[in-house]
């Protein structure tokens, strides 16, 4: 996917000015946050389950090569083929080759964020193969001129009912409907023929189970089952970090994933898919391929950002992020928005291509608090800021300003003088109004709020003066 993260600030401004989007975001925020909190109440031991999930994910990512080999062997035993892709371009090449080798002209897709990373739909179209998104949200975006998703589990969350009503009326040429059930039915009717005619199904994978060589899929619409059982060929595309050891482990992480993601104790559909169709079975693909994708993940192993590989893609971090809640997902400019995206985008798409993202957070740590696998997101964002500084990627004025400030702060007398001047200057700027409406030193601050006036003298000055007073402090 083309990266637009360098335009974060302009994107954010546009999001703030978009009143329809602002309304949609406000609506979505409440639902995600409230439903998650509600659903966690019936989990006996959230903290204990979190710790267990952290241990499961760590066990894998700490020895990723071994677990991948174990998964590969088990998957081969079930009749699947396992392919490895170094990057998005290899994903596109492999999927196209598989499609061509089976004479595929249409691919029915269940949700896959990795296919977004790879820009797979464009590659398939270029090869003359029609990709059809069958997740309702992804379908809405595809028929809306291939708009990118703004959320990892609710890709069209930025759209309102009215937006979708207009869109379906336009692209389906049907009378405009405003009932959700009617719109959904309309999409089902369109998609049904695609499910029946697609020769190949393509899905992501929430988890790969090493013990059985299976892929686990969490969906709410049933499209995942259609895509993975009806066509002759099923291709699974996942990141190499998605392995977990056993079915027992799967049960543990599944106590957290749907609750953290959508506030459901269990999703509408939860599938564990193992191997190709056996002679006595009626459903399932004749050919099953796993494409296990690196795309930057192997470089993260063992480094400063290792913990990020624990991520189970629930989206709780973005749902609870004050910045995401304010500007939505498109502003982040790549596949993954919110705090997770501000870590993943620099790691997978280039730190130099996403300079703003690690800074686009207040470090409030609400993301860290809700993360089901305890990824210390604020610490990782801070570490990325450090890497940017080390590589000289920050604007020169900012670097000089920070350096100068840190240098002065190590020299108390100089610093005290600077503070005295600063306090008086700001007080003078405020005049009688007790506030500053436009601050030349920090123009961003006063874009949307005033800067309150200081008292005018520093604590240090007043404290020194008080100590010179003859009477003891306590009689004050």
């Amino acid at each position: 996917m083309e990266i637009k993260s360098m335009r974060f600030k302009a994107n954010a401004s546009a999001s703030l000015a978009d009143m329809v989007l602002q309304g949609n975001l406000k609506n979505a925020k409440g639902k995600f946050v409230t439903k998650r909190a509600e659903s966690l109440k019936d989990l006996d031991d959230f903290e204990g389950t979190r710790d267990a999930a952290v241990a499961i994910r760590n066990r894998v990512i700490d020895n990723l090569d071994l677990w991948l080999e174990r998964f590969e062997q088990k998957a081969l035993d079930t009749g699947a083929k396992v392919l490895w892709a170094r990057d998005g371009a290899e994903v596109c090449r492999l999927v196209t080759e598989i499609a061509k080798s089976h004479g595929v002209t249409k691919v029915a897709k269940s949700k896959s964020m990795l296919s977004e990373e790879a820009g797979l739909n464009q590659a398939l179209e270029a090869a003359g193969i029609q990709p059809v998104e069958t997740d309702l949200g992804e379908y809405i975006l595809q028929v809306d001129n291939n708009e990118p998703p703004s959320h990892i589990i609710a890709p069209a969350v930025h759209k309102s009912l009215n937006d979708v009503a207009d869109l379906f009326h336009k692209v389906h040429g049907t009378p405009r409907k405003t009932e959700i059930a009617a719109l959904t039915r309309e999409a089902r009717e369109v998609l049904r023929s695609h499910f029946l005619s697609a020769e190949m199904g393509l899905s992501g994978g929430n988890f790969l189970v090493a013990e059985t060589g299976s892929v686990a899929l969490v969906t709410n619409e049933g499209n995942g089952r259609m895509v993975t059982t009806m066509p002759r060929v099923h291709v699974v595309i996942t990141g190499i970090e998605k392995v977990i050891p056993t079915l027992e482990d799967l049960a543990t992480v599944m106590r957290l994933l749907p609750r953290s993601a959508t506030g459901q104790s269990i999703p509408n559909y939860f599938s564990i898919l193992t191997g190709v169709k056996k002679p006595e079975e009626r459903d399932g693909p004749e050919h099953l391929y796993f494409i296990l994708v690196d795309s930057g993940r192997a470089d993260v192993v063992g480094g400063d950002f290792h913990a990020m590989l624990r991520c189970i893609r629930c989206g709780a971090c973005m749902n609870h992020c004050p910045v995401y809640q304010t500007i939505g997902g498109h502003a982040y400019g790549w596949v993954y928005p919110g705090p997770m995206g501000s870590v993943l985008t620099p790691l997978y798409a280039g730190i130099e291509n996403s300079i703003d993202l690690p800074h686009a957070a207040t470090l409030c740590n609400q993301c860290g608090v809700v993360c089901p696998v305890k990824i210390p997101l604020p610490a990782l964002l801070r570490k990325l800021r450090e890497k940017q500084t080390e590589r000289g990627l920050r604007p020169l004025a900012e670097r000089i300003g920070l350096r100068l400030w840190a240098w002065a702060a190590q020299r108390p007398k100089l610093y005290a003088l600077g503070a005295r001047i600063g306090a008086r200057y700001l007080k003078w700027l405020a005049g009688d109004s007790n506030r500053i409406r436009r601050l030349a030193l920090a123009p961003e601050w006063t874009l949307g709020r005033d800067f309150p006036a200081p008292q005018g003298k520093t604590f240090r000055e007043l404290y020194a003066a008080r100590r010179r007073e003859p009477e003891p402090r306590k009689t004050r």
Partner: protein
Amino acid sequence: MARVRVGLFVTCLVDLMRPRIGFAALKLLETAGCEVIVPDTQTCCGQPAWNSGDAPGAVALAKKTIAEFEGFDYVVAPSGSCGDHIRTEYPGMFAAEPDWRDRATALASRTYELTDFLVTVLKVDSVPGDYEGTVTYHDSCAGLRGLGIKQQPRALLARMKGVQLKEMNACEECCGFGGTFSVKFGEVSAAIAGRKCDNILASGAQAVVGGDLGCLLNIEGKLRRMGDETTRVLHVAEVLAGDA
């Protein structure tokens, strides 16, 4: 029992913007029986450098702060943010310097945010001031999620007869300040502050009270820009000391 010797970490923002918060903290600690020393060479804990990716600058300021404050029984700051930086971040900064790591760890374990110190360590059962009116409390992020400061300021406010607490919706949500975030992404920061201020105004309280000056300046600036001239924006130390 010997009097507890407390080093007051005033914080750079209080020094520059609101000295009266520093004096209120001083009064609260002295009233509670502490001997309070204010090292006059103190400047900043280094958090802005740390959060901006300037590790060397942050480490230098951490060392300076450790050297200035390690001689006291406790270090107290009228800020959850600075307190959290010293407590939570300092020990991890010195992976390659074991001596400094030990000193940082020792200091961290004796560093407290003001209301936490009054309630948890000193176990005070009265405060010097009183305040008449309704207040709503904003839980600042670093204090709340870093240091677990939630009930401490409320417990102290409850000691004051005239204070009536009216909790706002989403009192634990970030106000959008975020240190340098507020001057890098001013529009987004101010929009988040707008949500916070809507909740403050909806609470109907006459004053919003908090424990971190950065958040309070952000909130006050947004309230005034929104045209609200009456809601008072106060640091919890000012209220407790009777200086509000």
